[in-house]
């Protein structure tokens, strides 16, 4: 079969169409490599970042007392214990407040909500809240928790601010998990004469747990790594005691920020060592969640 044809357009008639498959295919190959390189750039930067931070921070990270002592004015002394405890407390509070509320909201929207205008408003609203910058949540926390409720710049203010920040992501992912529970499961349960809440609590929720946990990991990791909102709420960068719920507090990202902004040489290494700690904390959180997810997943 011939791959030539004569165009009808008189202007084009002089030129014969050739398919040129080879050159088009090799252009295709070239672009395949470009696309792959584009994808790899990000991973390359990630590798560089990990390498650079390990190079700068590992020595300091393993220096005695770094994880167990309170901060010092000198870059190569003291440790980051109050920041670690602060971050862990923040994370626990976020899990205790944001997860039940987020899953509750997701259950309402998926299982109970009638399709009316105001549930649509709630839905649009949640997706918009997911895009509000973290520093704006800081303003909300400052206004509501610091001043209106009178907590002041304490750990609980920071934790509740981070909870509000985490809620939209938890709700969105929990909804997806609940939506993916097959209806046959619900119908079978109803068929036995069980009420709606009993169906949800004993069938829908256990089935949705792995998916819900994914959202919880993502959002709590983000909350633990967030500094912008905590700066506005009033986290401090120097404490000589372990923070409690109603005390002034430190957190790892704030500690990193304060180390980076100090001009003396050794603080960069201390910042890198603190970054290693923060990333290990996030990885540990992910590890726990993945373990729980595998235990609970129903195949």
């Amino acid at each position, binding site marked *: 079969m011939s791959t030539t044809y004569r165009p009808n357009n008189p202007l084009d008639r002089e030129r014969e169409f050739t398919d040129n*498959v080879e050159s*088009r295919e090799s*252009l*295709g190959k070239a*672009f*395949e490599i470009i*696309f792959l*390189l*584009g*994808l790899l750039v*990000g*991973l390359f930067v*990630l590798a560089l970042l990990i390498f*650079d*931070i390990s190079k*700068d921070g590992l020595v300091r990270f393993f220096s005695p007392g770094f994880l167990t002592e309170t901060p010092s004015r000198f870059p190569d002394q003291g440790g980051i214990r109050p920041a670690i405890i602060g971050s862990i407390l923040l994370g626990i509070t976020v899990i205790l407040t944001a997860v039940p*509320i987020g899953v*509750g*909201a997701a*259950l*309402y929207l998926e299982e*109970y909500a009638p399709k009316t205008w105001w549930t649509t*408003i*709630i839905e*649009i*609203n*949640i*997706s*918009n*809240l997911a*895009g*509000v*910058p*973290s*520093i*704006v949540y*800081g*303003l*909300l926390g400052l*206004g*509501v928790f610091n*001043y209106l409720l009178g907590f002041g710049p304490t750990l609980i203010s920071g934790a509740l601010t981070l909870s509000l920040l985490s*809620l*939209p992501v938890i*709700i969105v992912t929990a909804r997806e998990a609940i939506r993916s529970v097959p209806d046959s499961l619900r119908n079978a349960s109803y068929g036995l004469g069980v*009420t709606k*809440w009993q169906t949800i609590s004993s069938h829908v929720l256990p089935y949705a747990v792995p998916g819900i946990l994914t959202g919880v990991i993502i959002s709590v990791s*983000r909350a633990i*790594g*967030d*500094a*912008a909102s905590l700066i506005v709420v009033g986290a401090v960068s120097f404490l000589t005691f372990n923070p409690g719920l109603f005390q002034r507090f430190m957190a790892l*990202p704030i500690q*990193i*920020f304060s180390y*980076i*902004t100090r001009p003396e040489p050794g603080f960069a290494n201390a*910042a890198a060592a603190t*970054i290693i700690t923060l*990333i290990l904390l996030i990885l540990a959180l992910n590890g726990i969640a993945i373990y729980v997810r595998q235990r609970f997943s129903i195949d």
Partner: protein
Amino acid sequence: MQATNQDNFHHSRESLEKKASEDIQEKIVAAILFCCALISIVTTFGIVFIIFQVTFEFFQEVSLADFFLDTKWTPLFAERHFGVLPLINGTLLTTAIAMSVAIPLGLCSAIYLSEYAPPKVAAILRPAVELLAGIPTVVYGYFALLFVTPLLRNFLPLEIFNALSAGLMMGVMITPTVGSISLDAIKAVPRSLREGAYALGITKLESIFKVVLPAALSGISASIILGISRAVGETMTVVIAAGQQPKITVNLMESVETLTAYMAQISGGDSPRGSLNFKTLYAVGAVLFVLTLSLNIISYWISNRFKEKYD
């Protein structure tokens, strides 16, 4: 009708009575879950109310014209100016740099993962790329200031704090946002469209540029707008690496200050509540909120408007 209802009632009286308590329990549960959902609305009202209340107070002391037209932002100096334009300029500059990184890298990742990568490879590479979004942003700030800037200073006359390094790192950070939403959009393009194109003797690359990408355009533009919104709202990278020099410039090698960087700066200091400095925090926050909210709404609207095209 009336009679049968009556009958049923007598037959199953016991079970009905049991139901009554369950009914109350059910209603309580439904009410609690409804309250959980309501918290999102309360949060939104909280943000809007708190930000705009203080912003309103701010505008009783500084005129709207000064705020939006003055070209100097010096609220902490003896001679005070409250022109927000330099901060907006800084924000747009870093955002533009970030997007010139995130759009090509994000689209390349999305195209490679959906069109070229074997499923097993894609299953590894996609989460690997998305790790970039999970790294705390303060870490990108560290990397921009202490690795990227010194590296670039070998070739370019950069200031220590500069828009370029911060923008580049922000771009890497936002790549997964652009990439994964674009990827979903590209995957939603039906196979039949690609097959139709192949049947016309088109190559794979041509099918990508002439069929798949145009068909996924709405999802891709939504991802880009969402990426812009992320860049506008990003704080830690710019406050660490871009500096605190509010000025109107397009020179990427200079230090600039963004809306978010100013907010972080003023929060770190000791501005007493109710002072004019304190109120600038909210006025700038209001600009940031309106800017990102509009971008989010546009992105949401685009992706919803064209979603059901192929269903």
